[in-house]
């Protein structure tokens, strides 16, 4: 088995295995407490602790130098104009830095820049075919659709953890289910999430270069999220479960008075288990890019090194070739060449 197959199928079977475990495990009523209460609490605990731990590990290392990637004109002479785009891509003030980070985090600014080099067949062009570096937004679109769908889904699920359900979440749900072409109303976010995850998966597999660099750690979360999405969709539209009982369970978890109502379908436990695995897996994986982007020194620093001193906590003196040594060595030649010296002999 080659590298790709090994990494892909291990991930696939891992996810399928998790599904199987949850499916059969939840059949036994005695294990429902385990899958419905113990695992979720454990997962959240691991998630929070792991997340905090990992961030602390990062925080333990200093940022010795100010190394922002300057993707626009820097602030120099006052009459050199910088439009807002440049001020954000090369922030000179904290305000603009916040803008840069916001764009990065909320709009995936850097990915939006993505280019593709391509040969364009262009018979109308007198030069014939042209090689162009064109703006390629599909990856950006896929990524942003994926992430926002995920966010909406998480917020939507809060209706299970709150009572009464706050107005914003209700509103969000109405918007999400705006197109009522099915009963229950189809949530756009669910569809978008699965489609986007499929796209991200497909490009990983079909693009030879991407397949070459992809590891199990890349396939596994995608497959896991696909599994979560698909099981959720199945639960809502096909294999229905008693939603009142689901909320009872969820609310029980959220209020620390866990209860396990009887008679929730197995698919719910599959869904829940996969979500728990995702939570527990989060801090140990590349999914840490979410908090990580806030700590990336090439993005989160103001580009003002020439007028605001940045201090390196472990700065240490180094040995360099001192002028005196230099002059001692070349004094005669320097005198001969009429170069001023400190000591004449």
């Amino acid at each position, binding site marked *: 088995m080659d590298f790709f197959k090994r990494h892909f199928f291990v991930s696939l079977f891992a996810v399928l295995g998790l599904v199987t475990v949850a499916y059969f495990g939840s059949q036994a009523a005695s294990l429902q407490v385990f899958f419905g209460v113990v695992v979720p609490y454990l997962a959240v605990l691991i998630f*929070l602790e792991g997340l*905090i731990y990992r*961030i*602390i590990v*990062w*925080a*333990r*290392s*200093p*940022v010795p130098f100010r190394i922002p990637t300057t993707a626009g004109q820097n602030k120099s002479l006052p009459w050199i104009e910088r439009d807002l785009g440049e001020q954000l891509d090369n922030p000179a003030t904290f305000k603009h830095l916040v803008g840069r980070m916001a764009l990065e985090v909320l709009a995936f600014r850097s990915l939006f820049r993505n280019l593709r080099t391509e040969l364009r067949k262009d018979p109308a062009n007198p030069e014939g075919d042209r090689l162009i570096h064109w703006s390629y937004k599909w990856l950006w679109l896929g990524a942003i659709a994926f992430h926002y769908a995920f966010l909406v889904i998480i917020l939507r699920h*809060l*209706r*299970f*953890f*709150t*009572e*009464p*359900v*706050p107005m914003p*979440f*209700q509103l969000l*749900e*109405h918007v999400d289910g705006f197109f*009522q072409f099915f*009963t*229950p109303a189809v949530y756009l976010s669910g569809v978008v999430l699965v489609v986007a995850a499929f796209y991200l998966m497909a490009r990983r597999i079909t693009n030879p270069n991407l397949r070459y660099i992809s590891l199990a750690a890349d396939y596994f979360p995608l497959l896991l999220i696909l599994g979560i999405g698909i099981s959720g969709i199945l639960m809502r539209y096909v294999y*229905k*479960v*008693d*939603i*009142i*009982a689901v*909320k*009872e369970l969820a*609310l029980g978890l*959220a*209020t*620390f*008075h866990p209860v396990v*109502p009887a*008679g929730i*379908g197995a698919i719910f436990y599959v869904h829940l288990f996969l979500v728990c695995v995702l939570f527990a897996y989060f801090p140990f994986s590349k999914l840490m890019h979410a*908090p990580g982007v*806030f*700590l990336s020194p090439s993005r989160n620093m103001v580009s003002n090194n020439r007028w605001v001193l940045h201090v390196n*906590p*472990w700065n*240490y003196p*180094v*040995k360099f070739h001192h002028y005196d040594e230099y002059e001692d060595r070349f004094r005669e030649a320097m005198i001969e060449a009429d170069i001023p010296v400190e000591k004449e002999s």
Partner: protein
Amino acid sequence: MAENYKNEFGVFAERPKVEKKYYNAKNIFTGLAIFLILLILPLAPNLGKTIPPPQRSLDTPVIQKLAEKDRKCLMPTDWMRANHMQMLVDWRDNVVRSGEKGAPNGRYFESPDGRKFLASLTNSCMDCHSNKDKFCDQCHNYVAVAPNCWGCHLTEGKTLAEAK
């Protein structure tokens, strides 16, 4: 020329001292705190409370009149809980959209145990469950769903009777 110079490298290195502490702690921990607060905020109001699940009330005049053994819905309760919305929409589609001819049993729904019901929310379901606020709304509000049944179907007892 610099025999005694210890640089950063290898075995003879004197490593630069990195103080053990949190760097940029203020920003990082503020960020983390904001994240945790956002996480807990929606859950906070109910923390520690016990919130009982809604109790569907079956206390309506029609049900009370029924003999104990006849007090059962057209489908098993578990099934109804998960699927009633689908059934109602199917009924609607059959009756309103495809016309009565489109439905296999015409306007009637046959339950597994052979009883026949008029496929109608107002006239069948709400006949027994005439207490919408104690039966339907409780759960719907609980899980924050707003079914669009009530856009057309009248809900008040009186008007219900008049419509008949």
